[in-house]
């Protein structure tokens, strides 16, 4: 036997302002929660997307980042000749020995930004599957040409195709823009490694990335490389290496998201509790009516829980709508392991929106429980007498009289309570139902109306007859 949902919906419509303020309060919490998660999500995606599963990534032994790594030409050529490096159609190894420096560049909006300049082999685009030239062309071997990531192109001047940037004391011509699935590469400048070496750090590479001919054999490959006496390197899966770089900040961002959202949620839940308590208090007569009609306290409990849930889900939906426009918004932070700037976009995914709704539902359930419990407990104990009893006094005094006042109250003396025998219960309760009900609806601008009564009775009877 369930109290129909329409009852709750009408009740909510009866107090639209309080429903909406509570819902919007929750909406803001959900919005902040989803936004923060989207930030952390975007950041993670930017770094994780940087790596590919089938690529191995080699740095000097003990180096935690590319910045502090260094690999000699000898090392690089040794690795190139190893059999587990995949080859392209023309038989060339899919390998990119890379130089890595961070330079200061003037930003469009003033101020300096730290930008990664990566010297790659011409094979790099093949090694890294997600990288694609979206405008212009790839740099030519032996030329002072560069390609720039598409987010970088938005924040730094002179990065349009055909323009020139000066760094390392040399002018470089931008010949193309590339995309890389929203990864951190899109914040980088790429040129030929051989061109960058003399300009920056001399005859040394910082890392080597190669495609494994058999990605599942990574463990063996790593062991071979790390134990090779000619080499002094650590081997990582490329994706894991970048993931580790993002781990710390990603964890901080997630923690902050949960921390801030939880604290806000506490405030919003308090608001929801207030609203629901007020709803329960103002509907005490109705609750009496419902119980008299034969609904069980647990039906009342679940009905009010559902009502709280509805408010929360309205809030959750509004929150998701509020937060949706930030999807794709580009922001930036620093990769502290290289002091370079990483631009990344907020990523609002369906999964995050679902988390937001679940979060809202959680707030609703927590906020609704105690008030609903109170509503249901209005009549614990002996059902028959307690029901009638409360029903009769409720219209007169919506709140339960305090213990101290009960003794002095004169009301019970002429109350019909005593006249009600166990058998007369139904009829009397109906009389009091109408009495209480009319009194109640008279106070309200929009009374519940007789339709609702009909609804309730219909639902009750149909359920009863099914049994």
């Amino acid at each position: 036997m369930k109290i129909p949902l329409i009852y709750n919906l009408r009740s909510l419509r009866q107090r639209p302002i309080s429903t909406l303020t509570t819902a919007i309060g929750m909406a803001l919490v959900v919005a902040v929660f989803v936004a923060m998660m989207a930030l952390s999500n975007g950041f993670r995606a930017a770094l994780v997307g940087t790596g590919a599963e089938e690529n191995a990534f080699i740095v000097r032994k003990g180096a935690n980042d590319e910045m502090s790594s260094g690999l000699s030409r000898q090392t690089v050529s040794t690795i190139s000749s190893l059999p587990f490096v995949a080859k392209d159609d023309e038989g060339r190894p899919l390998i990119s020995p890379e130089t890595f420096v961070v330079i200061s560049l003037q930003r469009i909006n003033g101020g300096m930004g730290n930008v990664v300049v990566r010297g790659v082999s011409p094979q790099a685009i093949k090694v890294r599957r997600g990288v694609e030239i979206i405008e212009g062309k790839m740099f030519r071997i032996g030329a002072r040409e560069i390609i720039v990531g598409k987010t970088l192109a938005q924040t730094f001047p002179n990065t349009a195709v055909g323009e020139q940037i000066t760094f390392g004391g040399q002018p470089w011509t931008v010949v193309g823009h590339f995309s890389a699935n929203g990864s951190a590469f899109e914040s980088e400048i790429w040129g030929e490694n051989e061109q960058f070496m003399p300009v920056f750090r001399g005859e040394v590479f910082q890392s080597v990335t190669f495609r494994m001919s058999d990605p599942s054999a990574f463990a063996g490959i790593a062991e071979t490389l790390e134990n090779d006496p000619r080499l002094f390197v650590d081997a990582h899966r490329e994706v894991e290496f970048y993931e580790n770089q993002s781990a710390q900040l990603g964890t901080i961002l997630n923690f902050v998201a949960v921390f801030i959202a939880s604290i806000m949620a506490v405030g919003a839940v308090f608001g929801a509790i207030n609203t629901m308590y007020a709803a329960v208090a103002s509907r005490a007569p109705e609750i009496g009516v419902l119980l008299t009609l034969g609904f069980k306290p647990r039906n009342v409990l679940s009905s009010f829980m559902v009502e709280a849930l509805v408010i929360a889900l309205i809030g959750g939906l509004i929150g998701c709508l509020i937060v949706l426009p930030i999807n794709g918004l580009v922001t930036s932070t620093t990769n502290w392991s290289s002091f370079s700037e990483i631009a990344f976009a907020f990523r609002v995914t369906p999964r995050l929106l679902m988390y937001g709704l679940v979060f809202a539902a959680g707030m609703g359930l927590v906020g609704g429980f105690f008030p609903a419990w109170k509503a249901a407990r209005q009549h614990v104990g002996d059902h028959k007498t307690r029901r009638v009893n409360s029903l009769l006094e409720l219209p007169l005094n919506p709140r339960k009289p305090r213990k101290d006042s009960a003794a002095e109250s004169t009301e019970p003396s002429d109350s019909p309570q005593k006249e009600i025998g166990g058998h007369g219960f139904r009829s009397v309760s109906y009389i009091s139902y109408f009495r209480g009900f009319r009194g109640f609806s008279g106070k309200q601008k929009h009374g519940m109306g007789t339709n609702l009564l009909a609804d309730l009775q219909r639902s009750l009877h149909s359920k009863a007859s099914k049994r």
Partner: protein
Amino acid sequence: MKFARLVWANIFRNKRRTFLTAASVAVAMFLFASLRSIITTLEASAELGSEARLVTRNAIGITFPLPEAYTSRLKSTSGIRNVSWANWFGGVYQDPQDFFAQFAVHGESYFAMYPEIRIPDDQLDLFLRERTAAIVGTGLMERFGWSLDQTVTLQGTIFPGDWEFTIRGVYTPDNPSFSDQTMYFRYDYLFERTNRQVTPGWFILQLEDPTAAANISTTIDALFENSTAPTATETERAFQAGFVTMWGNVAGLVRAIGTAVFFAILLVAANTMMMAARERINEVAVMKTLGFQNRTLATLVLSEATIITGVGGLIGLLLAKGFINPANPVNVMLPGFILTTGTFVAGVGISIALGLVSGAVPAWQSARLSVVQALRRVA
């Protein structure tokens, strides 16, 4: 105030509701104070660097060093009183996640230039006499449980290998924004162990006259413009501020969250006050009948709301005050994470504003209330 009892009675009319409202404001103000402290701390650290010192770095980027030979040329530039230099070491102590900064510095000149770093004279003497000596901030000492004369081993990342340092001095910053989480050691130790391959990471120049900073910066950068390592010179404050901007748009993010928190709690408080007012329509009508002016009734409602939010806000701010202290782990990332008086005052102001705004609707409603209709509705 003869009306105080009336306000008081109404505040305690529904204790649970009052408590929940005050508590939600407290929570909001706690969050507000914490978030704003992050911004103020960032701002403070952006202004930390001195205007009387210049930093000269490689124009290509901060990670590129400069030739040591620049020292003498910088010294001979007019307007510069003293020159020192430092390097970023980037070592790891045990756990790479447990980050702290280490600088290799030219001891004789560096500490003389930084009165912010307070070291007992005898400890500084020891430091200058022993190549592997290190000077460590009080906070860092505490964090790792180090003691004076202890030898600690760091793993180099930029400069590979295990590096042993003996802690010969402990410094206390003279200002909470100046990190006490830093380790300084001798440049010549770094120099010797890297087979004299290392050159200064950046130079610090002490000016005779801080107002000449801009001119001298230009002069210096012009001096090295056509050399192998062109320089970029700016005041230390600008240099520090550059690092702060590397946090990205933290301030904007924090402000956005703060605004959302404010409105969320405003809605909670306003809703509560409206619920309270709705229950009391009849009473307001009675009081009007008794001759209470709209103004008086509005004052009563506003006082009630303001007291609830004000007390809640104050509690939240005091909690934040207890939470934001030097022992807070955030301090490692953000030295000088403190709750400023400005934040406290702003918090109190916002709490009161919350009360006034949330009380405004019921106050306005009670002023507009028609006694006749309100009383008829009950009767």
